[in-house]
């Protein structure tokens, strides 16, 4: 039935039926033809025997709302199907009521939430003439029990079920004198309700798969430029001027992979990236732990560090920490040479100065009242500071901290300006290695430089992939 709808119709309520005249959908029972099937409710197929089961599985529009659009006991409405006022109820006979049982509750709630998310879909539930159907802000959660189901048997619809049940097999109408008991088929039909509902909801909150139209221009530009850059980089690494007609080869890759300076650059880059990220994360957690109260104030202060360009931070580091710099003027000779340190102390220091506030902001955002409540509970149970941090806080802040750390690591792997200004002459980082190679050997070495950049790009993107996988796993766990 759903498939036959035109896209604009959207929902059964807009089909225009007898409901708009205030009649209960059940009044449609007994009418023949395809339309009659749409009026067949969750429990009205019972009297049609086995064939009815098949119909039940194909009919996706349920129109078995009780009078005045109110939920019957034992039924669960979609979140959006709530009635605004008594006058409106009469015009809203079928707003997607469906019958559920406890076994189907999880799925049901998933659908309900999905419907809440789909505001447009919720709105579709309203009739064209009546916009009184208001979305519900909270999902309806009403566990179904056998007792609830028994109630169903108590109302008018259930009596009709009983009537039909009594006459099942070949009876198409109620059999007088058989009332009260909950018909088996009616119960089974009730349990089948969610199956129908799932299909129905699938129409309104179907998982989207395509790219939204508004995103197409931006994605096209990004794919062209970013994809072009990656292709150009790889082609350039295979042969300088490959795009302009040179022949491809792996000669420059060979010379790169056998270059001892490149090996040193890879080692140095990885060490600097790991050290910068780990120390930044540690400082961020320590700062957040010390300052997480009054976080709004601190966020503003910490946020002021974020727009400071890396270039300016590196320049400040040179002003303060270079031999004869401000730090030496203040305290005398420094215990170690920071700027130009061959172990990368200067680079790490600048990155920690720049990235720790960024990570602290992420941690502070996750270190919310709920986390503090968990800390209090742990404290009341006798946990010490380390245990509280490990068991109550870290699980809460781990995800943003990890994601932020991976971003920081990806950045530090490929950044140029900081190693150029505060790093040593030797070893290079991979990025400065490529610049140095071009500067020393000229355009001939461009392919080798490109190959080095391909490697560092692959390393950065791998970290991004890890972050995405962790994010996905975290969501799956939730």
């Amino acid at each position, binding site marked *: 039935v759903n498939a036959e709808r035109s896209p604009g119709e959207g929902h059964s309520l807009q089909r225009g039926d007898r409901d708009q005249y205030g009649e209960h959908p059940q009044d449609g029972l007994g009418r023949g033809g395809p339309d009659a099937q749409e009026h067949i409710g969750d429990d009205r197929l019972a009297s049609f025997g086995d064939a009815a089961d098949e119909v039940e599985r194909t009919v996706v529009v349920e129109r078995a709302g009780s009078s005045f659009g109110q939920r019957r006991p034992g039924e669960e409405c979609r979140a959006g199907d709530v009635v605004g006022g008594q006058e409106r109820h009469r015009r809203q006979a079928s707003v997607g009521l469906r019958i559920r049982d406890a076994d189907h509750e999880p799925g049901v709630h998933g659908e309900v939430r999905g419907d809440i998310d789909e*505001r447009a879909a919720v709105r579709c539930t309203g009739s064209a003439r009546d916009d009184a159907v208001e979305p519900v802000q909270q999902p309806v959660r009403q566990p179904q029990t056998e007792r609830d189901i028994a109630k169903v048997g108590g109302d008018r619809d259930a009596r009709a079920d009983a009537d039909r049940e009594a006459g099942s097999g070949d009876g198409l109408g109620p059999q007088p004198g058989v009332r009260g008991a909950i018909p088996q088929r009616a119960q089974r039909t009730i349990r089948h309700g969610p199956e129908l509902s799932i299909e129905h909801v699938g129409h309104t909150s179907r998982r*989207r798969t395509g790219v*939204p139209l*508004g*995103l197409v*221009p*931006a994605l096209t*530009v*990004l794919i062209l*430029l*970013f994809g072009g*850059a*990656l292709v*150009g*980089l790889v082609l*350039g690494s295979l042969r300088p*001027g*490959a*795009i*302009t007609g040179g022949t491809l080869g792996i000669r420059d890759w060979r010379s790169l992979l056998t270059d001892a300076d490149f090996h040193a650059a890879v080692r140095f880059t990885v060490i600097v990236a790991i050290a910068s990220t780990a120390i930044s994360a540690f400082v961020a957690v320590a700062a957040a732990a*010390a*300052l997480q109260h009054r976080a709004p*104030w*601190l966020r503003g*202060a*910490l946020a*002021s*560090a974020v*727009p*400071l*360009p890396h*270039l*300016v*931070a*590196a*320049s*400040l580091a040179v*002003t*303060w920490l270079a031999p*004869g710099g401000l730090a030496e*003027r*203040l305290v005398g000779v420094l215990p170690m040479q920071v700027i130009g340190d061959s172990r990368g102390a200067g680079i790490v220091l600048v990155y920690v100065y720049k990235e720790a506030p960024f990570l602290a902001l992420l941690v502070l955002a996750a270190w919310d009242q709920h986390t503090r409540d968990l800390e209090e509970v742990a404290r009341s149970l006798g946990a010490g500071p380390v245990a509280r941090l490990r068991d109550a806080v870290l699980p809460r802040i781990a995800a943003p901290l990890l994601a932020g750390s991976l971003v920081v690591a990806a950045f530090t*792997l*490929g*950044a*140029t*300006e900081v190693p*150029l*200004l505060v790093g040593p002459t030797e070893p290079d980082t991979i*990025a400065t290695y*490529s*610049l140095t190679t071009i500067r020393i050997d000229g355009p001939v070495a461009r392919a080798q430089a*490109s190959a080095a*950049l*391909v490697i*560092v*790009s692959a390393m*950065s993107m791998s*970290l991004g992939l890890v972050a*995405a996988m962790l994010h996905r796993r975290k969501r799956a766990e939730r």
Partner: protein
Amino acid sequence: MIRGRAHDGVVPIALAVVAVMFVVGPVGTLLIQAAADTWHGSALVPQGFGTRGLDVAWGDPLVAPAIVNSLVVATTTVLLALALAWPAARALAADRRRGLQLSLLVPLLVPPLAIGEGLSPWFLRLGIGDSLLAIVLAHLVTVLPYVTLALVPGFTPALTELEHSAATLGAGPLRRTRTVTIPGVRRHLALALALGFTVSWSQYGTSLVVGGGIPMLPVVLVPFVRSDPQVAAVLDLVFLLPPLVLLGLAAIVPQHGARSGGSALRSTGR
């Protein structure tokens, strides 16, 4: 209570430390260094103040064009990014698939130097190599994700409802955009513009590789850091000014509230 008092004592100190480390310290250092015409030996305070740094910077044939070029490139890039990001952010806000938003972050993982190195052969082949347009396009790869992701939270369901209401009341697309949408997203719009400008303004690796010999402020600044710290400090201040001003302005743009929403509705003719 005791804990509260303890935190009351800690917070001002922490704020002072943070402010000194990240705001007062850097700007103060740069101001003193930029004005220190004479600063010999191990003296804590410069022996003479003056405008030598400014004079040398201004007299350098590359500095003024570099500032102009950087301004032109950053402005063009952010406007271009905004034109593309606006519909993209609307779509992302309505779609809610996290994967789509995360996919925009992929270009940010690749070092800008690599992006520039990969794009420059194409630009040379297209005949736009070593031009401002090439730099703009290269910066766009990095700026566009930031601008888009900064705009997304602005397009809330409430704003969409306001737009629908305005449309119902007869407001055309332009009027809706002017009176409802832009006021509704102004804070995020300001942040996106400031962020996008800052990112483009700060690009070093891309500008160096794609720009060829075109002077850009970060490229011109780097050699001065070790050769003439005073001039470097002057250029650092110039370099720091637009991001601080823009992000400061973006931070004080008021959030679109219920009252302004009401006025937006009223202005549509109700």
